């Protein structure tokens, strides 16, 4: 229980929310112990996980019902990621066939309008701006224009503001009063600390929030703010921002976010990617070969190919949990990728006979392979040494019972 509390506090979940949460888990755990036959520790982990997932809630789609154009309002603190989120949403909606208009509703920060305009150009989405027009009026005009122009969605990027800034909060109220939005989405930086709770309360008290976007989730913040905000506002989490590119907007998965907040890493995401990239038939074939001890360089090449399909190495490494992920971050992903490429190149430069019977590789053949693959003889030698080690490993596994291994690959 102590660990759970620490994990949540370290993930920036608000103090009072943690307190309530721990009390709830404790109550359930005490009640459950009598009835179930699980080990108490397992039971607690299970309950914690269930409660976290329940608190985080199901991912909700964007509400795009009602008459067109539907208004999406993005609100949040300065620097939370609203403008980028606006661009990402525009891209997403357009890829679903919607005609989208962006509205530059931040007349205060220098060049905020240009920033949105640049994004609009990049996406080929029109951006509505009018200098000297206050955001509420600007929004109303944009919606009228969108209506005439047959646009399906209008996304307003509002100025960043502190929830304590009465003047700017009143401006938000005025926008909502003038044109009721289909969605008012609070954009929150995943790295935010304990203040997340007050920020969410402040915005919720001013305007009816309908959803949450957690930005900058591609960093190593645990994102505990999501729990605080869900607990106090009850609005569903709609998206996660996971990168600087405009397509890096993901629908969130409660289980995955729960394990991230608890510091267990995104193992689920990793497994999913591995599954998607893996060709089951090839895998079974490989498993059979491995357990029979005939592991050739051809198999190694095949393994490399399927691991590459999983995506860029940098992303893979970041999904690892806790210390492993931390350690992996210190490895240059290019180095890993470069090495994979070199290995593939070397194997491709071998003849089929050489791949099946590496024993025939003499100095002359190695020199030919090196020049054919644009590498050095030393690199070829290194690969061969690694290959021998792998072969030895597989043979040992076979002796100790290859059943576990084929299970692993099947």
């Amino acid at each position, binding site marked *: 229980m102590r660990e759970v509390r620490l994990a949540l506090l370290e993930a920036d979940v608000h103090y009072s929310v943690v307190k309530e949460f721990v009390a709830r888990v404790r109550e359930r755990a005490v009640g459950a112990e009598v009835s179930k036959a699980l080990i108490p520790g397992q039971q607690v982990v299970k309950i914690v996980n269930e409660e976290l997932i329940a608190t985080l809630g199901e991912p909700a789609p964007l509400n795009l019902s009602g008459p067109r154009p539907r208004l999406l309002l993005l609100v949040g603190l300065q620097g939370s990621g609203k403008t980028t989120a606006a661009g990402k949403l525009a891209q997403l909606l357009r890829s679903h066939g919607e005609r989208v208009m962006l509205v530059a509703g931040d007349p205060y920060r220098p060049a905020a309008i240009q920033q949105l305009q640049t994004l609009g150009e990049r996406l080929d989405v029109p951006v509505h701006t009018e200098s000297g027009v206050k955001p509420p009026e600007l929004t109303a005009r944009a919606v009228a224009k969108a209506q005439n122009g047959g646009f399906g969605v209008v996304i307003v990027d509002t100025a960043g503001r*502190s929830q304590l800034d009465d003047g700017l909060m009143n401006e938000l109220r005025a926008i909502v009063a003038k044109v009721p939005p289909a969605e008012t989405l609070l954009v929150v930086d995943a790295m935010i600390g304990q203040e997340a709770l007050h920020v969410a309360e402040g915005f919720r008290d001013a305007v009816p929030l309908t959803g949450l976007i957690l930005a900058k989730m591609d960093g190593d913040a645990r994102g505990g703010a999501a729990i605080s905000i869900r607990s106090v506002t009850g609005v569903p989490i709609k998206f996660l921002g996971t990168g600087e590119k405009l397509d890096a907007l993901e629908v969130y998965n409660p289980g995955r976010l729960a394990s991230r907040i608890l510091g267990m890493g995104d193992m689920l995401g990793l497994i999913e990617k591995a599954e998607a990239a893996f060709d089951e038939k090839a895998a079974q074939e490989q498993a059979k070969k491995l357990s029979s001890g005939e592991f050739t360089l051809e198999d190694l090449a095949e393994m490399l190919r399927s691991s590459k399909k999983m995506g860029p190495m940098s992303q893979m490494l970041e999904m690892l949990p806790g210390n492993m992920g931390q350690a992996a971050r210190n490895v*240059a992903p290019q180095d890993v990728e470069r090495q994979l490429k070199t290995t593939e190149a070397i194997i491709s430069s071998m003849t089929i006979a050489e791949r099946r019977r590496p024993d025939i590789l003499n100095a002359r053949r190695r020199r030919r392979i090196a020049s054919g693959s644009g590498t050095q003889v030393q690199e070829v030698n290194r690969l061969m040494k690694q290959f021998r080690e792998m072969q030895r490993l597989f043979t040992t596994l076979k002796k100790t019972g290859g059943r576990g291994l084929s299970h692993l690959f099947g």
Partner: protein
Amino acid sequence: MADLFARWKNGLTRSSQAAFGRLAGLLGATEITDETWDELEALLIQADLGIETAQSVLEALKGAVRTRGLRRASELQSLLQAELRSRLLEPPSFTLTTRPFIILLVGVNGSGKTTTAAKLGRRFAQAGFKPLLVAADTFRAAAVDQLQIWAERLNLPFFAGQAGADPGAVAYDAIHSAITKKMDIVLVDTAGRLHTRYNLMEELKKVQRVVGKALPGAPHAVWLVLDATTGQNALHQARAFKETVAANGIILAKLDSSARGGMAFAIQHELGLPILFAGLGEKPDDLQPFDPDAFVEGILSA
């Protein structure tokens, strides 16, 4: 000086209100109980000090209470204040050891680098120096425009590269221009990057190297701009920027929000990085030298 303190107070009043009264109520004329300690822990954690720092502060207080035989909760306040204050470094005074003095501003996306660059430029200009603002964020849409508008508003010299240009090349050219024009300080606004993005951190290293080629010994300072609303992740950020580009000072932006910036304690404790300035508002004059006393007061707000 009085004016300076007043500005701190103004910037912090909004954030103070939430916890005002609370500490006073908590540390009234009652006896110290377990509840007192729980409440203090809540206060510290809610100010983003983090569980480890909060507990270490409480341990120190408990020790002092034992040795001095304190019983009344009201006696804890000054003790707590002193304990927190002792954990903050005195901000070093800023001296121009060489000219031009090159400063790189680094940080994660949205932390407030560009605004801080402009405000710093203003401060230095008011102090009688000739600062050059350099827009080396060629990645984010309109980041260059943002700094340029600031430069025009504040009437400060400005240097920019083309959008999409290599940030190192921009910094290189800017430094040469600064040398020719006999500028005193060069403020290089770099693109925001998450500290976990290996490639982007490597890019920043390259900018640092190129700056060193343009002027041996440069950059003379690398300042990390941290958003004061950041939670535990602030320590990860500071660690990463210190390791990759030898960040040697912190600027705490957006301290005028409701956040109290308690992560500063862990950062100073683990990394020894001093906090140099604090952003206390949106106006150009709202960047002020870090004042540890006012900062602690902001955390306690009583």
